[in-house]
């Protein structure tokens, strides 16, 4: 059995006196799609941000691809990683945000080529070819030279997915990717994600799309108030939840 892509051991995260994560332990295997469900404020997004070291955890251990996130451990002591080491590790993890966060002063193409050119050192031509291919895969061949303001929310989010994929990540994190979209635009984004899952990408998806979780997820995790309430196969958690809190939540969402 190979090392899982993500391993969390009793991860705690505090903001001041507010404890947002109270001991999260879970594993995401390679090629697995995990959906994180739960009411807002339950710590799903914070956990996602910890994986990418956008937030520092206060206790516990968090591993990506077998390596500690943000630290190096030797002789039982933790050493903070240097900025460039953190940067290097971040470049291997793709993130798609709820608010897209496309760079508004760049065209769709420039958004997608920025990382490969500046971080991976690809030539502009190479990056361009790859970006056009990626934008084609998310159905935006005709929007290559368009600025984000002229794109719909769904199109922006698909550019954001292409931008993350251009770095050839080994892990993709989705933070409520469809929550800011009009209902009729959600489908295209979910389609792109579904295809990605079938291609074997390891994905952690924070979402309220129960249908997507049921269909695509290998594991569904239900979080509430900073703890994992319940985790398992989609039909276990979604159809036969064992915990009262999961039942109440699903009853409200569905």
């Amino acid at each position, binding site marked *: 059995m190979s090392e899982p892509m993500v391993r969390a051991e009793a991860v705690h995260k505090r903001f001041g006196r507010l404890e947002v994560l109270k001991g999260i332990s879970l594993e995401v295997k390679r090629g697995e799609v995990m959906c994180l469900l739960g009411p807002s404020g339950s710590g799903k997004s914070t956990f996602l941000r910890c994986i990418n070291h956008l937030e520092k955890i206060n206790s516990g251990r968090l591993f990506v691809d077998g390596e500690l996130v943000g630290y190096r451990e030797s002789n039982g002591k933790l050493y903070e990683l240097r900025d460039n080491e953190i940067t290097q590790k971040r*470049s291997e993890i793709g993130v798609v945000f709820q608010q897209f966060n496309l760079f508004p002063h760049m065209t769709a193409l420039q958004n997608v080529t920025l*990382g490969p050119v500046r971080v991976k050192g690809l030539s502009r031509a190479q990056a361009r070819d790859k970006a056009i291919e990626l934008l084609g895969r998310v159905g935006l061949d005709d929007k290559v030279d368009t600025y*984000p303001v002229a794109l719909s929310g769904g199109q922006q989010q698909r550019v954001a997915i292409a931008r*993350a994929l251009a*770095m050839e990540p080994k892990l993709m994190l989705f933070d409520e990717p469809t929550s800011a979209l009009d209902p009729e635009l959600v489908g295209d984004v979910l389609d792109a994600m579904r295809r990605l899952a079938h291609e074997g990408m390891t994905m952690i998806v924070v979402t309220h799309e129960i249908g997507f979780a049921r269909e695509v997820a290998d594991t569904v995790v239900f979080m509430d108030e900073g703890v994992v309430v319940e985790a398992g196969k989609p039909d276990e958690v979604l159809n036969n939840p064992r915990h009262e809190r999961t039942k109440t939540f699903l009853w409200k969402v569905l």
Partner: protein
Amino acid sequence: MSTSELSNERTERPEEIEAVPVRHPGRWVAAVIVLLIAASIVRSIVTNSNFEWHLVGQYLFDARVLRGVVKTLELTVLSMLIGVILGVLLAVMRQSPNPVVSGASWLYIWFFRGTPLLLQIFFWFNITALFKRIDLGVPFGPALIHANGNAIITTFVAALLGLGLNEGAYMAEIVRGGFLAVDEGQSEAAHSLGLSRLQTMRHIVLPQAMRVILPPTGNETISMLKNTSLVSVIAMSELLYTVQQIYDVNYKPIPLLIVAAIWYLAMTSVAYVGQYFIERRFGRGFSRAQQATMRERWLSFRHAQ
């Protein structure tokens, strides 16, 4: 059901409204007063021979005046250059996680914004009273370059230091405001791609901050064009000091001050036009039609809060 009935009931368009407009007698009174004042000013300009318009024409392109204009432009460009570079540096320092670095930036801004520009200009002009010799080298260590203070701090350098260092403090606040206007999600997205802090600053934050930084920077440039006249107090022969020197000899201050005013107006007007084109260049991705929708989004976002 009822809606289709309603639409069927719609008859032909009613006649155009033709109402008697409200009268605004106050507007007429105000206009007459303004025109009367303007007419009396124009009459005095034309009839008062003390304006000596022929002298204005004579001195407008005088070689000394033109040299003064060039000096004013040089001072403006170089001071703004110092100001902008210093401003960006101070703004970046202000964002530093290192409290000593950000504190130093704060202190600099506090000092240079808290004392009058005129005082600062006098101060730099007299700096050689503090330092007779200027040594460049390792702090508290051996000096590498020795120089006579008076040789380095010429009037021009004192003027540049006075204007540029002061401008740096104001530009720092403008640049910082620009940084703050860029959504945090932008930096996070850039970091997630693996861009370093410096790359994020250069490729993501600065270009977007530019849109916010440029309009006030244009205003600063226009202010600087006029503020250069302050260095006339240290006998720096820019435009104002030049015309002062001329009227000290011929005792014709009014026509020569008008000459200076015309040149300042011409220079600031050109600066206005330049500002317009530069702002358009950095509006990419935020073009006018789309700006409205951005604004609407922002408003609706705020209402949703």
